């Protein structure tokens, strides 16, 4: 069991998405989380001035599956068809550090005690980083909801925040899951649908082309950034082994080399910490940024699909109306149907346009903030490395 209390790193982690929690009438955060074997239990803390809630300040315990339930419920709500539903947080994945820990255990015999301890510390830090990331991502999901004018008022959202019992009864049962599967199948048909038809509306046509292309590019960039960060971590780990062996050699050495080796080993130990920070900062500012917006763009694409479906419905209703008129049967009903479809389509288009425009703004601001911060951190770490290196070089040259 690992427990996590958020500290000042929270501010840094929250930067991926912006414009959150500006409205103090509903403030949400995840101050604490517990990891029990495979399950993570998040403590969702709410502070509100709204009357719709029973208490002004309260906390509940939620699991990842509860978040997914909330997300899916919102997606399936007709009323929100014209909105970009914030992407669901990904499942907590401790696979990578766990596997590495396992490998480390197997290789324990080949390392010195000092080396093993350091590697273990590194892995524990990695584990912690994964933990923090998953907390952050779940937190941002809720904060996106709370800062959205429509979604924040959702009844299911309220239940999620307030209901002090286990939510599992409300979660998907087998039937619903099958429904979900079916829904996915229909969705891919939609994908074909919107890729093929050229939209009359210039704005949406442009958005469609842009989002489709951008999605595949950002997905690729996310994967490549991840690989880059992982290589960086490998280099930092190598420094640990080299430093440890240098210390062993220095211990046995009784020539003038002893001090040199010791200083060199010490330096490498300090450097690897800096390299580790470079890797993790890059991960947060770059990889996580890309990953987050990749999912957000998927959510925007979902909006486009829904609109395309509404358009298809409208066109079908038109055909049905014509048929009814031909047969002179159920004309009024068909007319009503057509009117409803048109209404829905127009509403979707209007809100969709708003959402997509604000989405672009959000994206640009987030990219700007993160790229600036990443560049500043890289410079800071490089300057730190240089001062460590030059200090050591001077020491060594004196001898």
């Amino acid at each position, binding site marked *: 069991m690992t427990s996590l209390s958020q500290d000042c790193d929270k501010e840094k982690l929250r930067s991926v998405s912006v414009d959150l929690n500006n409205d103090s009438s509903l403030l949400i955060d995840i101050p604490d989380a517990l990891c029990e074997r495979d399950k993570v239990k998040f403590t969702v803390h709410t502070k509100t001035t709204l009357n719709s809630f029973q208490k002004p300040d309260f906390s509940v315990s939620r699991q990842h599956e509860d978040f997914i339930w909330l997300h899916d419920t919102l997606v399936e709500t007709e009323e929100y068809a014209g909105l970009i539903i914030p992407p669901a947080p990904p499942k907590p994945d401790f696979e990578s550090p766990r596997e590495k820990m396992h490998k480390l255990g197997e290789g324990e015999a080949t390392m010195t005690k000092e080396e093993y301890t350091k590697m273990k510390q590194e892995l524990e830090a990695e584990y912690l980083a994964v933990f923090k990331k998953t907390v952050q991502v779940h937190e941002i999901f809720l904060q996106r909801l709370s800062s959205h004018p429509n979604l924040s008022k959702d009844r299911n959202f309220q239940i999620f925040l307030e209901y002090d019992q286990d939510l599992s009864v409300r979660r998907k049962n087998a039937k619903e899951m099958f429904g979900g599967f079916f829904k996915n199948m229909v969705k891919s048909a939609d994908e074909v649908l919107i890729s093929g038809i050229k939209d009359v509306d210039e704005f949406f046509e442009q958005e469609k082309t842009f989002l489709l292309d951008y999605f595949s*590019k950002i997905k690729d960039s996310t994967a490549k950034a991840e690989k880059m960060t992982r290589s960086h971590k490998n280099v930092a780990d190598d420094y640990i082994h080299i430093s440890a062996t240098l210390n062993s050699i220095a211990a*046995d050495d009784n020539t003038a080399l002893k001090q040199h080796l010791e200083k060199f080993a010490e330096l490498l130990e300090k450097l690897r910490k800096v390299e580790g920070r470079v890797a993790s900062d890059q991960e947060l500012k770059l990889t996580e940024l890309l990953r987050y917006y990749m999912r957000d763009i998927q959510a925007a694409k979902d909006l486009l699909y829904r609109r395309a479906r509404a358009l298809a419905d409208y066109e079908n209703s038109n055909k049905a109306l014509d048929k009814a008129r031909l047969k002179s049967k159920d004309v009024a009903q068909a007319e009503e149907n057509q009117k409803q479809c048109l209404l829905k389509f127009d509403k979707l288009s209007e809100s969709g346009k708003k959402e997509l425009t604000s989405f672009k703004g959000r994206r640009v601001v987030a990219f700007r903030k993160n790229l600036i911060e990443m560049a*500043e951190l890289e410079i800071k770490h490089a300057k730190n490395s240089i001062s460590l290196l030059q200090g050591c070089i001077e020491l060594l040259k004196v001898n």
Partner: protein
Amino acid sequence: MAEDREPPPLADAVQTDFREVEEGEDLFVSTVSTLSPTSPEPASFPAEDISTNSNGPKQEILLDDDQEDLFAEATEEVSLDSPEREPILSDGPSPAITPVTPTVIITPRVDALFDRSLDESFLNYSGFLFLSSSAYRGAAITSLSLFSRNEFSVKRRFSDFLGLHSKLASKYMHIGYIVPPAPEKSIVGMTKVKVGKEDLSSAEFVEKRRSALERYLMRTVNHPALVKDPDVIQFLENTELPRAVSTQALSGAGILRMVNKAADAVNKMTIKMNESDAWFEEKQQQFENLDIQLRKLHASVESLVCHRKELSVNTASFAKSAAMLGNSEDHTALSRALSQLAEVEEKIDQLHHEQAYADFYLFSELLGDYVRLITAVKGVFDQRMKTWSKWQDAQVMLQRKREAEAKLQYANKPDKLQQAKDEIKEWEAKVQQGERDFEQISKNIRREVERFEKQRVKDFKVVIIKYLESLVHTQQQLIKYWEAFLPEAKAIA
């Protein structure tokens, strides 16, 4: 730090077999030291040129017509800093003579050339290494007469280098000199090059080998006794060398070597030496430990090189992806920033690649060299054991002969008795020689180890600083690139 003082290798046996000298003749004589009279091969300075063994195929001889082919391939030239040789002093017998530092500096430089038109047998290296050495004239002494010219270039095959090492090892190792080991053969690497793969890995292989050969030569000429060895001088100077066929793995000599190696390994296990000298016991243990640690360190550094290369590749890959993303981005300022990011990452991937290069050539190769050198050091310790064993065997033999003689005294066989007495004399001499050899090799090893350790300290100190400086350079470049990018990121509106 105290100036390195190098006593002449064999203070007792100073021979005066030397070549023509210019001024300071007497001075020069006493500094010339040659091999001990008991060494198997006589010290002899080479004649000007050696005729080539013309019973080989035509390819052995480099004709000038082939020049164009040979220079067709691009080569890289790297010359290491010229090392200062340890001054050889005329210590000892004539204190009136003031010690003078000879100022011969030999800088071997190795360039690699390829000639694919040469059709050679599978196990031979078909590339040539273009070897140039510069020996600079010193002020007072012109001990330059070791070499007939100031600066010269010769072409050598890889097998020639191996041949040189083989000769030196057979001449010097059994008297306790640490002979620098030659680089290893690599059938895989060489085959790739032969097959004509023009890719990056074969270019890297050539560079790696070239650099290794250069370091090998540097170490060899840095050794005060080896640099004067006629085979070395011949190697550095002569236009043509007889083909070193005995270095081929499957040649008769090669097989003999393998058999000897196996025999040595067995002997090592069976010889139980009574070590009376604590210094040797301590040193041997020390080198054992150092061997293990250096191998471990070498493996870790190789891993670092590998990971850094991966980092470079992955960064390049990301850079391309970021460029595509930038193209796809419809917000103008962000699009430009992403393209700039892609450019920065591309420069950074180059940086990582160069750092990996430094990781390898500065750090990893030094460790590899020292792992091999320590094997050579362990080898001389083993030789000492063999020498001791030979001495002990001679003592046993002598004892037996004495016993045989005593028996013959009573048997009254005058002719056999005389023979027995002769044999006793023979073995007494051998025992004395054995003891002398043992003492000599022990003395040599002590001196060699001291020199070796000094060199090791120096090498590592230099490399550590150079390596750290390479890391500094990388970080400085990183700052430059990111500082250039920052305004671009801030310009996103």
